[in-house]
């Protein structure tokens, strides 16, 4: 009897279909079915169509299942719900290129603080670090940076909630990176943490001003305002500034709280594209 003449017995096919076949007979049957159309046709008579359909559905689900990237995996591991992690993973401010730029900037400012022995306050780090979350948040939401921005605005998920989620993600990451940079200059003491209050104040103020001035002008104005404030208060060559004293930090924290309240008041403006301002409305630039 040649190999072509041999076929799986009906009882064995039935056992295979029921999942009752055991090795090594299972392996032998499987190998034969792979090369024998006749036995495959016979097998179909023993298989429950509903079970086959369910099997295909399971396979489809497995193949379609979104494959989370490293950021998303990390967020889920940290306890963030899978669907929230997916929303956060789309945050432009968490892109590798932006994070690399933040890391590089912090390395440079930390290095400058190390080299400047005449300073008692690491002013390059304290001046630049609050701008990083400000820029990070500015590039995380809006028509210029989020390709599906318009779909996000008209979706039932509250746009302000999406904005806050993304802000929280950007702030967390930049805070962690800046925290690491602060540890790298321990000689300056507790003053190296002076970036924290202005980071919050600048970011919240920028968001609160966005409905009035638009998503580009608001962070620009706030950023330059911060630099101007530093230019007016920093003493040469020590780098000391009233902003990094206890009263100055308390004032910045109060400013952050006031900006948070102002942002809460204007939150409804983020529910439509009104927070872009009339002039910046995409329909006026692209087409009416």
């Amino acid at each position, binding site marked *: 009897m040649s190999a072509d003449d041999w076929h799986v017995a009906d009882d064995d096919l039935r056992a295979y279909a029921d999942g009752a076949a055991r090795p090594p007979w299972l392996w032998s049957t499987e190998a034969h079915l792979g090369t024998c159309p006749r036995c495959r046709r016979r097998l179909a008579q023993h298989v429950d169509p509903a079970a086959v359909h369910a099997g295909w559905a399971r396979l489809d689900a497995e193949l379609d299942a979104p494959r989370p990237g490293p950021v998303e995996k990390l967020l889920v591991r940290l306890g963030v719900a899978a669907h929230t992690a997916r929303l956060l993973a789309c945050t432009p401010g968490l892109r590798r290129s932006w994070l690399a730029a933040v890391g590089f900037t912090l390395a440079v400012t930390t290095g400058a603080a190390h080299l400047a022995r005449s300073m008692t306050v690491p002013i390059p780090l304290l001046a630049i670090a609050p701008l990083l979350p400000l820029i990070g948040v500015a590039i995380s939401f809006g028509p210029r940076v989020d390709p*599906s*921005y318009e779909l996000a605005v008209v*979706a039932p998920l509250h746009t302000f909630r999406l904005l806050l989620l993304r802000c929280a993600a950007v702030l967390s990451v930049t805070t962690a990176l800046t925290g690491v940079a602060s540890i790298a200059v321990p000689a300056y003491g507790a003053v190296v943490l002076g970036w924290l209050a202005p980071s919050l104040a600048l970011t919240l103020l920028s968001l609160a001003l966005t409905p009035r001035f638009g998503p580009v002008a608001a962070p620009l104005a706030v950023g330059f305002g911060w630099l101007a404030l530093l230019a007016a208060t920093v003493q040469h060559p020590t780098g000391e500034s009233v902003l990094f004293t206890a009263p100055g930090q308390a004032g910045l924290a109060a400013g952050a709280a006031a900006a948070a309240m102002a942002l809460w008041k204007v939150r409804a403006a983020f529910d439509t594209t009104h927070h872009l301002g009339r002039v910046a409305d995409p329909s006026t630039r692209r087409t*009416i």
Partner: protein
Amino acid sequence: MTTVRAEGLSLRFGRATALEDVSFALHDGVTGLLGPNGAGKTTLLRILATAIPADAGQLRILGADPRGAAGRLAVRRRLGYLPQNPGFHQHFTAFEFVDYIAILKEIVVGRHDEVRRVLHAVGLDDQRGKKIKALSGGMRQRVGLAAALLDEPALVILDEPTVGLDPEQRMRFRELIAQIGEGRTVLLSTHQTEDVATVCQRVIVLNQGRIRFEGEPVALAGMARGRVWTSPARADGALAAWRTGSGDYHHIGDPPPDARLVDPSIEDGYLMVIDAASLAGRTA
């Protein structure tokens, strides 16, 4: 059933008037929104999609007033929207992108099954796992349409979905739109009178921010009745004239010498309406 009722909608961007005193109603089926560039079509669709509010006028969508937060949310839960330039996260697969929009639409139970259903509905079963950046323009439009169909919306707003598609893709897209329009309201903004002729039960013509015509496509064609001619030579003074494939000239306007009156098409009616509106604008 009346899905949308707009009364006196107006909107200005700075000194520019985008919409002025726009009133209309939408019912189940496909309604075409025709108009030249800058007519105000996209602005009107964005108001209906709750992306921007109107400056003035009354608007009821699916029984809700979108000016308030609660009404806006009620509309958004039953709305499907395909913007003119739908942006895609290029690193996503088609499935992942639609799944992302499903999360934004707060679909919790059976989300992946729903994503699979809409991708099947637009004929993208075999393309689900492909990255968006690897898809053709027509396929991407289908992905956008699939996202718009999530959660069985009662109102679907499509902003020029057939732009940039080749003739076959355009035909397939029209077929899809016709299917979608069965049992729900679809508003289809387009430049193409063929889109209106093939799939729309009603048509609105918008020009310079005002509605110039609202009715059935046949009635739009009827706007040019008795004003469309063919003749062997071009005649000066026609509103529009062009040489056809047969060598004769197609005229819209007063009859040229040796002219033969022909039945008007939707395009003829549209040109008549737009031209009358432009004349009115110039003399106003």
